[in-house]
């Protein structure tokens, strides 16, 4: 399931949505990404962050990534939720949930979804510093590099 929304999410609620009433799941992994006060390691403190995206393409790209994860691992369910709009330090940005019979598949699929989301999903972050100046976050080469792990 894919959702792009300004609203916050609740991890337990999303786990329940995937697993309630089922007895064929043995492992559920969640990843929550949050806004850090000094979001770029090089930058100073930020007061807020604005997330822009490409409506339509974002959802398609997330669906492609989700389909690919389901082709690679035996999964009982997957959820990707990404927030847009203005967020503050400590706020949730993104949630990935994976459910499988076994822990290895759930862990690997969650990492795969995050690695691909980071490099393919059409979101852009702009940080606002304490002095009011705004800066678009630069993409990290490291995010692109980790994809090599899944090219097999």
């Amino acid at each position, binding site marked *: 399931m894919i959702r792009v929304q300004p609203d916050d999410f609740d991890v337990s609620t999303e786990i329940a949505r995937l697993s309630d009433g089922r007895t064929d799941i043995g492992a559920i992994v969640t990843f929550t*990404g949050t806004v850090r006060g000094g979001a770029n390691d090089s930058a100073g403190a930020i007061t807020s962050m604005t*997330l*822009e*995206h*490409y409506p*339509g*393409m974002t959802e*398609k*790209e997330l669906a492609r990534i989700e389909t690919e994860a389901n082709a690679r691992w035996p999964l009982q369910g997957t959820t990707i939720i*990404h927030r847009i709009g203005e967020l503050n330090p400590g706020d949730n*940005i*993104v949630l990935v949930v994976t459910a499988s019979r076994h822990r290895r598949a759930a862990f690997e699929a969650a990492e795969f979804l*995050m690695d691909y*989301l*980071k*490099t*393919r*999903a*059409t*979101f*852009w*972050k*702009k940080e606002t510093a304490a002095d009011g100046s705004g800066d*678009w*976050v*630069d*993409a990290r080469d490291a995010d692109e590099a980790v994809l090599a792990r899944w090219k097999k």
Partner: protein
Amino acid sequence: MTGKLLYFAWVREKIGKGEELVDLPGDVSDVAQLISWLKTRGPEYEHAFERADIIRTAIDQTHVKPDARITDAREIAFFPPVTGG
């Protein structure tokens, strides 16, 4: 040919708009040629596409390379490397 162009993040801010319809010259047939042509349209475009090597392109909401043909495109989007998650 009339093309629908979309711009996001700092590409959008530099050009000063998020979307436009343009009449494309007949000799513009791939992404790299389209960028070269856009840069001739004014200083804001020149500025936005200054670092053309890092700008990403999507045709009809799918990531493409600079040599992708644009002939049948319904919408073409330009944006910086993504930074979600």
